[in-house]
């Protein structure tokens, strides 16, 4: 959806439940992406909770959780969305004179546009929605409504189980073979897959140290740090600017991904590209851990063509440092823009290995997996 096309944006606004207000100082380079004011929507939506007939309350709740940032991370968002859809399907009943598959597909589409208004979809969510719609389309007409709903329920259950939970276990099993005693492992931000790998390796008794690199404005590394220290791993915490200093000690780099694209580019939290570049410069292997359902046939060369823009106010304020308040009232000056990118694209040259549930593959093999195991065969 191109947000620099005014007529389409107008049409979208008329249909939407969430009434987003556009951000004031927009960055020119990103006019094709939505930039909205974030602060005002949550209380408005919370007050409307009992008034909405078109939306199932479970979906509404998940949308609010996305908006406030309570749920973040590709796997968590995908699972939350699918479970909300399960509830919505359970409570669904086909209106008379309509077929279940067409009507349910339309309903799911409306839920999805609501979720997009709350927060743009991640690639994992997009793939899951495609799977769900294809399953709905495959339901034979002869099936009764309750049977169809049960089938869909178990399909979603199977998807979550096979593609996310079991896939993570396979990834962990592969990845711990790459960790030796005495290693110093670096990770960036907070990835669920990498966290599981580190915890499992520690349980197996391997001796290693972890370096957690963090960045503004989300400081996701702090949560990972807390969880790992509680489990008894020895951790070093630093910020992304100090990477060149700390990289001398590091032996391996483990990164998570939001998606891997067909040209081998890793689409992940902003800052991952910097980490991978410095590691490559120091000749340190970079291992990306990504479940196969997150692969996409799209290609991307830089981080600008497709991205997500976060709340600019979180850059102007530094939590815990009240003395850094030079940018109070930044939106009043028209010359200043704040840019809060959420994702960036890491070129495939920097990545040594991608660990997926299909095995450990080089970045160039991603389009093979998308083609061979994509579409019909992936979703058995």
């Amino acid at each position, binding site marked *: 959806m191109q947000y620099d096309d005014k007529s389409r944006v107008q049409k979208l606004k008329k249909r939407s439940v969430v009434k987003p207000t556009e951000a004031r100082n927009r960055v020119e380079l990103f006019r094709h992406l939505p930039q909205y004011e974030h602060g005002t929507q949550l209380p408005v939506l919370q007050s409307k909770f009992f008034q909405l007939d078109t939306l199932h309350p479970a979906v509404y709740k998940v949308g609010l959780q996305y908006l406030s940032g309570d749920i973040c991370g590709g796997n968590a968002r995908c699972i939350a969305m699918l479970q909300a859809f399960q509830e919505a399907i359970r409570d669904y009943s086909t209106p008379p004179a309509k077929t279940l598959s067409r009507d349910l597909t339309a309903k799911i589409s409306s839920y999805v546009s609501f979720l997009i208004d709350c927060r743009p979809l991640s690639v994992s969510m997009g793939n899951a929605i495609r799977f769900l719609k294809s399953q709905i389309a495959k339901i034979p007409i002869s099936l009764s409504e309750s049977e169809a709903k049960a089938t869909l329920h178990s399909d979603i259950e199977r998807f979550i189980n096979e593609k996310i939970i079991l896939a993570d276990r396979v990834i962990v099993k592969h990845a711990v073979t790459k960790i030796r005693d005495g290693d110093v492992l670096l990770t960036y931000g907070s990835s669920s897959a990498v966290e599981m790998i580190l915890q499992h390796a520690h349980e197996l008794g391997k001796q290693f140290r972890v370096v957690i690199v963090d960045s503004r*404005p989300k400081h996701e590394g702090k949560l990972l740090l*807390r969880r790992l220290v509680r489990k008894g791993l020895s951790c070093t915490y630093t910020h992304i600017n100090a990477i*060149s200093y700390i990289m001398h000690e590091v032996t391996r780099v483990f990164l998570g991904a939001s998606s891997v694209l067909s040209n081998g580019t890793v689409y992940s939290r902003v800052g991952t590209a910097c980490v991978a*570049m410095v590691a490559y410069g120091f000749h340190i292997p970079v291992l990306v851990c990504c479940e196969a359902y997150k692969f996409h046939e799209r290609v991307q060369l830089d*981080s600008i063509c497709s991205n997500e823009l976060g709340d600019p106010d979180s850059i102007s304020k*530094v939590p815990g440092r009240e003395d850094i308040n030079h940018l109070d009232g930044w939106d009043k000056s028209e010359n*200043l823009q704040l840019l809060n990118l959420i994702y960036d694209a890491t070129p495939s040259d920097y990545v040594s290995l991608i660990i997926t549930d299909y095995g450990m593959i080089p970045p160039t093999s991603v389009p093979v997996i998308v083609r061979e195991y994509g579409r019909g065969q992936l979703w058995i």
Partner: protein
Amino acid sequence: MPDTQALVMTFLTSLKNATARQTAELLRSVISQQRVPYTNQAGALIDAVKAVGEQLIAANPVELAVGNIVRRVLHIIREEDLSLTTAAIGELNLSAVSDDENDDDRDGNTTLSAAAVAAAARSTLRPPSLQTLLEDTPVSAAVPQTSSSGGDSEGKTADKSSRSRKLKHDVIEAVNELIQDIVTCHEQIAEQAVEHIHQNEVILTLGSSRTVSEFLFAAKEKKRSFRVFVAEGAPRYQGHLLAKELVARGLQTTLITDSAVFAMISRVNMVIVGAHAVMANGGVIAPVGMNLVALAAQKHAVPFVVLAGSHKLCPLYPHNPEVLLNELRSPSELLDFGEFSDCMDFGSGSGSPLLHVVNPAFDYVPPKLVSLFITDAGGHNPSYMYRLIADYYSADDLVVQRRAIAGN
């Protein structure tokens, strides 16, 4: 010299904010208050400056500008002494040539002048030539011989006292020029802005540097249109300050986080940054995060331009700069002590804590990543910086230590 010592002590306590200019002013007062003997006055001045310089450098070795200024002043003293002596030798030669009616006098004068020339050459503390090394005469001992070797001794001593006053005077004048250079280096660098910034450019910078902001303002004054991406430069967040200043002057500014540098650099035409110090091999000691920017710029073939005043040029070679020329700051800038105090309770078997926090202040950028240095003396390649060292510093001063003089 109790006065200078008191000055030095107050300076050392405020060394956290020491600048090159303050060091130069302090050394100027040290020199002006130093009593010089009639003979070997340059040596005395050098000893005094070295004594103070040693203390200054030891107080904060990471603040390289202080050491640079100490070495610059020492070089100034040597240069002034050399120029005065060559002028004096010139006078002696003239007087020897003009006195040609009396043979004895002339002989005496010419022999005198030859001996005086040799002794004066030794006494000017030039880098030892092969001849002086082989002659193996101590430097300071040579000077009294000239004064006792022949007639005109009163004339000579009168010369020497006026010479000593002249030396101090010249040195202080040269130090004043140095201070002036330090103060005006921003303007001289900013004058070159128009050559490098054209129209519709996009410039990236990290953190905040006064030289960079003056550079950009100068280009703006000359009606060049450009936009600036400022990376905020955690954990000091000086990028916020720079963004505010640039916006106040009417420049289109976008503030980005440091993690977004790689993402944005594909759309940037030039990276312009300031430096904390420039080392002898052309490497740069810069605020933390600069190496990241330099690597990203190299990957995308974006020119990486470093602005540095000539007082930041350091004659030392960076050995292991990440460790030896770095400062680790407080972890509370990254992690709040209150929030993470419970993590400090977890320890490994040996009792060492599980949680370590690393917060370096500086970064080293190797010379191969730098495209251009812009100093107040013009633009230079990184491979040329070693040559500038010969202009500003003497080889004897690399290690600032007062040599133990026997029987002093």
